[in-house]
């Protein structure tokens, strides 16, 4: 073979592959669903399904045990961000009651090369992250809400993902087996 081989940085290629595939999916959803809010909701739902599966992988790879408290949970999600997206967000803005906190992402591989057109300014492009957090935590018996507070795609300096603890789910009933 005459071709001299080009060794790619597989880690980088993989991250670009995720970013581009996700971008193509979002663009497709915008074509499929007429309403930006519906796209945002659908992205969250898709993230939820991913979270349900990713948690297994996370637990297996890290050998993590039960979370002691919500602070511990936040730290573990922070580790997951590093493992799966290669970024390390800060955990901040704790509510006085200690039941709500935020992840601050200064850079976000999902949105790095994205420019939202003016007619899509309402789109929650990163809602998939909220969905993943909700899905993953539900599998470890934590019912939470998660939403995007600040968004770099809409001109904010960082992306802020808020997480609010709702309640602890009953241990005895694994989802889908009632």
């Amino acid at each position: 073979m005459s071709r001299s081989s080009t060794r790619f940085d597989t880690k980088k290629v993989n991250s670009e592959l995720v970013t581009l595939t996700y971008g193509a999916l979002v663009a497709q959803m915008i074509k499929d669903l007429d309403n930006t809010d519906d796209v945002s909701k659908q992205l969250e739902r898709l993230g939820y399904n991913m979270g349900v599966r990713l948690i297994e992988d996370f637990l297996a790879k890290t050998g993590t045990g039960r979370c002691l408290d919500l602070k511990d949970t936040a730290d573990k999600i922070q580790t997951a961000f590093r493992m799966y997206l290669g970024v390390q967000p800060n955990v901040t803005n704790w509510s006085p009651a200690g039941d709500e906190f935020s992840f601050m992402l200064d850079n976000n591989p999902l949105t790095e090369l994205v420019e939202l057109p003016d007619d899509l300014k309402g789109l929650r492009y990163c809602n998939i992250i909220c969905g993943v957090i909700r899905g993953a935590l539900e599998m470890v018996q934590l019912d939470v809400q998660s939403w995007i507070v600040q968004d770099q795609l809409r001109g904010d300096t960082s992306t802020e993902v808020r997480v609010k603890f709702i309640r602890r789910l009953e241990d005895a009933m694994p989802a889908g087996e009632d």
Partner: protein
Amino acid sequence: MAVCVGIIGKDNSPKFFTCLNPAEELNFQYKVLSALDVVEEKLNCGSKGATDLRELYLGMLYTLETHKIYGYVTNTKIKFIIVVDSTNMALRDNEIRSMFRKIHSEYADIVCNPFYIPGEPICSKSFTGSIKNIMTGTV
């Protein structure tokens, strides 16, 4: 410092165009488009050419009394053209080459914006800003 940058699509139609002096735009568009013939010629002449054709940078395409015109073609057949003042002696081959690399990098980034449809004219403000910076050598 370059005076004009043009990006020409696979179909040989301009996708992006910017000049330091907007009044000269039409004049430069003409120059850039006529450079495309030289690009085609260089790409088609096979391995007989003096330059290594497997390189994306094509070198100087032609000179006019007032300007020098350089070309670069990506593997995806997108052409980048840079126009430089003939009086500008500061810009050597290596500087031009590195300018092209930076433009290429910006182009590859814009193609990855899921809301940009490849083949359409590029109208992103941040892209225009980056290209201007590359032209004036501020990056």
